[in-house]
């Protein structure tokens, strides 16, 4: 429906929601700017170059189709870890279920609770990385989020933080339309781990802006699951400075439509950015990873590792780009995207891109799509492993390269166990 209407009317419909909003203090100007930017760029449509494979309609329609909520075990995900837990139910902060945000070794505030204040460190970031990330490729859903999001966390790590911050997204409402905007600042030499888990909303639009100071490190593990009909668009904008480290991994299971965009800028020499994803989809499932890594400094390393397991007509999309600017010598860029198609109805659409203006760089990319390796399957079965179990073993082994990008064995174990559960529920 979005594409037959003049595109601004849908934008207006969305932005009308903002009109009733009062005082936003330090973020008000950023919101107004975002509204103006959105007016001029319009919402995504099928003719946009980066929306060719994934139809944006369901993400931008003004009404949300309801999605059945699964009462699942996912609430206990990562529960074995010491953590600072922050719980949102249908996008609304739950103080009862969350840990005390005071007195932690990292500063954590809620966007909604700082909005009346004038001046805030997050003012230098909120909507700023998002705005920068609009060029050269427009990402209107993120701009929409900047304009409208009423909640999110503002996290400031000033030193080494021991416990990970865990954002838990629960759902109760069948048709919740959730928007959260998080801002994370890791100071020079500081470190932070961020975990995210849960299905969030019938539809969710999340933005995460992360700035990592010189020699700072940021680790991020996200599990999007397990409700079936939900829709999600996420944008992660990250800015790295000298010698900083960024490692992000996302696991997605189920969901009718998920678009995860990751936009990384390496601005300081010798930075390291790894972004990885594993997804498993069965049936009514479209999963899109759209990644843009810009090397704008010397001697940086970037890795993109994405693996998709698709069955019963599921669709996987990967659009990944490495842009190496002229002065970004000694760049080491790597990108791999692979799909395992468990039947002939499923499909994988990949668009790997390299754009290189420096001459002393090592960049490689590859993309493959294939079925379960018949020889490996036969080998396992000939040793007595039943077909379904052997297929699961090979599926896990296919995903392993992406999962192993997480640099914490305990977290890897946690993710693998979760995947085993997903596979086991589908064993015939």
């Amino acid at each position, binding site marked *: 429906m979005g594409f037959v209407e003049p595109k601004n009317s849908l934008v207006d419909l969305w932005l009308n929601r903002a009109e009733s909003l009062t005082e936003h203090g330090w973020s008000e100007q950023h919101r107004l700017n975002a509204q103006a930017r959105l007016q001029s760029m319009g919402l995504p449509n099928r003719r946009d170059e980066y929306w060719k494979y994934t139809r944006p309609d369901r993400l931008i329609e003004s009404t949300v189709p309801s999605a059945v909520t699964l009462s699942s075990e996912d609430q206990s995900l990562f529960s074995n870890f010491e953590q600072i837990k922050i719980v949102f139910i249908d996008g609304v902060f739950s103080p009862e279920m969350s840990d005390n945000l005071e007195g932690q070794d990292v500063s954590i505030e809620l966007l909604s609770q700082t909005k009346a204040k004038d001046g805030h460190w997050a003012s230098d970031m909120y909507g700023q990385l998002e705005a920068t990330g609009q060029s050269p490729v427009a990402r209107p859903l993120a701009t929409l989020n900047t304009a409208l999001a009423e909640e999110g966390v503002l996290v400031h790590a000033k030193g080494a933080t021991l416990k990970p911050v865990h954002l838990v997204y629960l759902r109760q409402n069948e048709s919740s339309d959730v928007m959260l905007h998080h801002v994370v600042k890791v100071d020079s030499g500081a470190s932070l781990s961020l975990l995210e888990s849960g299905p969030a909303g019938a539809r969710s639009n999340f933005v995460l802006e992360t700035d990592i100071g010189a020699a700072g490190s940021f680790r991020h593990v996200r599990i999007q699951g397990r409700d079936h009909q939900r829709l999600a668009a996420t944008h992660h904008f990250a800015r790295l400075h000298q010698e900083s480290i960024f490692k992000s991994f996302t696991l997605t299971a189920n969901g009718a439509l998920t678009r995860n965009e990751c936009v990384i800028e390496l601005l300081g020499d010798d930075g390291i950015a790894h972004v990885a994803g594993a997804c498993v989809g069965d049936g009514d499932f479209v999963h899109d990873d759209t990644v843009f890594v810009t090397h704008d400094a010397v001697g940086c390393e970037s890795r993109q590792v994405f693996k998709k397991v698709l069955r019963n007509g599921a669709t996987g999309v990967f659009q990944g780009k490495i842009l190496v600017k002229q002065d970004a010598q000694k760049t080491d860029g790597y990108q791999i995207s692979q799909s395992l198609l468990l039947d002939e109805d499923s499909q994988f659409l990949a668009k790997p891109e390299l754009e290189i203006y420096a001459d002393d760089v090592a960049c490689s990319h590859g993309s493959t799509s294939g079925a379960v390796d018949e020889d490996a399957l*036969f*080998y*396992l079965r*000939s040793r007595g492993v*039943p077909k379904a179990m052997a297929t699961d073993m090979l599926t*896990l082994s*296919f995903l392993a390269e992406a999962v192993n990008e997480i640099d914490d064995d305990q977290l890897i174990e946690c993710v693998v166990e979760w995947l085993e559960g997903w596979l086991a529920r589908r064993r015939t």
Partner: protein
Amino acid sequence: MLEIKNLHVSLEEEDKQILKGVDLRVEAGKVHAIMGPNGSGKSTLSYVLSGKAGYQVTGGSATLLGQEILDLEPEERAAAGLFLAFQYPVEIPGVGNMTFLRTALNAQRKMRGEEEMSAADFLRIVREKAKSLKIDADMLKRPVNVGFSGGEKKRNEILQMALLEPKMCILDETDSGLDVDAMKLVSRGVNALRDDTRGFLVITHYQRLLDHIKPDVVHIMADGRIVKTGGPELALEVETNGYSDILAEVA
């Protein structure tokens, strides 16, 4: 133990017959060897017996301990006691060798209605068997066959065989790619499993493996059939004269 009668096999994809009436009977406690020129159908026979896809049985039968096996799934044949040591063992990245061995062993036990082996027992037994094949802890930890040398892969096949304790062992060119020391290790592993209850079918090109694993019966396969059967001396004849005399004689 294993009884193959008039087995005819063609390829599923194309109209090509590969096995043209194989008759073979391996008794418990015996070692049979199959020799024959390249392309005569030896590997095909081993694959068809263990249930690999892509082949069509167009006639004949094969029974293991009296049970018809050609209709069974590969894993059911394994649980029934059949084992194939592959000519080309498959690399499986991302699956640890130890996990693989334990999953296979317990899956077979489960199918046979036996109890799973405890982690402690498993560990003890694997370590003991691995040691006699000079398979170190690192090889057990690594993904199945990934980065293994040719010899290491073959030793890993024998380790699986030793652990799974099958009734009927088929070895397809286990000697290829082995140096003398590895050949001795592998042969020792095979000989350790020889007893009155177990049958062996050893496919090889060379007499030298049969110096270590002494066969009771030797068959010559050519163009999809067993064309000659004899005692160990038949292998020596092949070693000195090649196949041409034998093939001319039966033509």
